[in-house]
């Protein structure tokens, strides 16, 4: 690929591995510094549910042996890393015979669908609004109206979600207040797709409306600093139409740093969407996260955290690798 050197790709890939390793290590070590024993906690939960369990002490011991909790810490750690690399996250504690990965496989498509649609929409709208705000020749009335669309910036996704539920689901009854689809069976037919879009509208709106402003502000700043560049004056002198100057000369250049910003803020967007799914009981990974917290299902919690770290770092890696294609001036070749 143009501008990409082997050395850069390798370096970038090593950083990708470093990120995942760091994340995986943090979620392994810190919980183990805390007092408490997951197996004992689980047994006591079973006792709470069924009243009494015979030989609970032996049961704890057997399970500790089975999950290798009596081994030295570094062996547990190495085994954990090896399992994570193979996506073997063990069994769900609350739905016991089911492997964690099966749970995640159910939620992941929903999360990826909602998040990618919402992120792309907010990136497009936000940059367009920002570009118009920073452009000298935008009509005055538009410049007055546009900032209104940014009024939800700096409110967390989920708080706007709560407000949207109250207005549009409880008050006006226009949209459903929870779930990803109604009782119709999932399948690739038109009715189900419409149903999914209908259910996804409010959650997506909550993310788009709140994250749009950040893009708009960044874009506005870039447009202002590009405004005095010589190539814009030259384009005008050549008599190019204003629309063409706006899109292919100003926006084309101003939008580039926004892709870096996208890579940097993706982690925050993913985190924010966990809460949105929780508020809307959307059937994605974020809602499963909440259910796992309630059920004290530690393997699922750890699995989801690892999956989210993995997914975000992969997306950031992809953005970084296609960046030279978007901006041909960037090369990683040594001078």
């Amino acid at each position, binding site marked *: 690929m143009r501008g990409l050197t082997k050395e850069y790709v390798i370096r970038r890939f090593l*950083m990708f591995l470093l990120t995942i390793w760091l*994340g995986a290590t943090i979620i392994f070590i810190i*919980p183990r510094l805390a007092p408490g024993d997951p197996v004992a906690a689980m047994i006591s939960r079973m006792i709470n549910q069924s009243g009494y369990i015979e030989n609970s002490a032996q049961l704890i011991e057997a399970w500790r042996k089975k999950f290798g909790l009596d081994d030295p810490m570094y062996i547990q750690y190495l085994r954990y890393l090896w399992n994570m690399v193979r996506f073997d996250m063990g069994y769900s504690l609350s739905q016991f015979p089911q492997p964690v990965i099966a749970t995640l496989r159910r939620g992941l498509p929903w999360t990826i669908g909602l998040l990618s649609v919402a992120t792309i929409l907010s990136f497009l709208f936000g940059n367009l609004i920002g570009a118009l705000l920073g452009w000298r020749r935008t009509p005055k009335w538009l410049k007055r109206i546009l900032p209104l669309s940014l009024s939800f910036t700096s409110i967390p996704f989920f708080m706007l979600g709560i407000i949207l539920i109250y207005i549009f689901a409880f008050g006006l009854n226009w949209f459903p207040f929870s779930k990803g689809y109604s009782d119709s069976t999932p399948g690739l037919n038109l009715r189900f797709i419409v149903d999914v879009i209908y259910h996804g509208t409010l959650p997506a709106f909550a993310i788009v409306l709140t994250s749009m402003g950040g893009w708009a502000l960044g874009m506005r700043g870039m447009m202002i600093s590009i*405004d005095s560049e010589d190539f814009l004056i030259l384009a005008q002198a050549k008599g190019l139409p204003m629309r063409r100057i706006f899109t292919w000369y100003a926006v084309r250049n101003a939008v580039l740093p926004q892709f870096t910003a996208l*890579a940097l803020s993706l*982690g925050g967007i*993913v985190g924010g969407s966990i809460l949105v799914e929780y508020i809307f009981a959307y059937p994605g990974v974020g809602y499963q996260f909440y259910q796992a*917290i309630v059920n004290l299902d530690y393997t699922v919690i750890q699995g989801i955290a690892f999956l989210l*770290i993995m997914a975000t770092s992969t997306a950031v890696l992809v953005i970084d690798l296609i960046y030279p294609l978007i901006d041909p001036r960037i090369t990683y070749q040594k001078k």
Partner: protein
Amino acid sequence: MAEAEIVQTGASAAPKTGRRINRWDNPWLNVKFLVGAGMVLFIVLLGVVGPLFWDTRLARVGSAELNLPPVGVTVEVDGVKYVGTWKHPLGTESNGRDMLALIITGAPMSLQVGVIAALIGMGIGIVLGSAAGYLGGWVDNVIRTLADSVITIPALAVLITISAYVRQIELSTMALILAMFAWPAPTRFVRAQVLTLRERGYVRMAQLSGVPPLEIMLKEMMPNMLPWIAASLSGNITGTILAASSLEALGLGPTRIPTLGMTIYYAIRAVAMLRGMWWWLGFPILTLTIIFVGFFLIATGLDEIANPRLRGVKS
């Protein structure tokens, strides 16, 4: 005072002709900055002065009647009609906590966690960022790689995992955990600032005069970075308060202290919105929004003060 008024009226009558220096043209009189500072001050005062006027013990479970709407509102909850009174101006929730007392005790807590975590993060960021920017070489490589890696980790996912294990969490522990993810952004940002400042004439001059690096950083560079650092700090505070209230809204906050996020959690658990109890969620969200918008305005205001280009295109 009189002189100031004259200058002001003169400026409004003939805005572009006057050549003398307008004392209202001080960049620190930035509207966004002042409004934002006012909003944050309002929340601080609420926590400081509030307890003098309102009994905060009402924030405990069962200290008031249940499900009362704010004063002047009549609402039907679960088929029973409730009338709001002055006894509980912001209403009460289903566990008999008074909303006003909850806000007065909760708002400073949320602010406190955010400010402590952000300050720790900022401190680490300043140290690592200036070391990376000023020293360069392998130090820069290590710090930059670390910061770039940590910044892409979805912090909330890790924070949720940690607090799911550490169930009984204290406010100070929470602040420390949050600080773990509050340092990469300031580090990157301070590093970039130091890199540009390093090439300035006065820094070169100081280097040539044999001033030790630490002194250059503190005496020559720091003062020039202050507005940016303040802007980045208030952005950081927003981030940490957001993370803290997100954890609390999932039920992972301190259970003994009534924070705004925990109030949201209880309200979500009790399906407050769909029972029409808008005040239960509405007031904590409003308070948090004031905090968020306040710090957001402070950050953008400080940005404009530090960087005149952002003040807009004058057409």
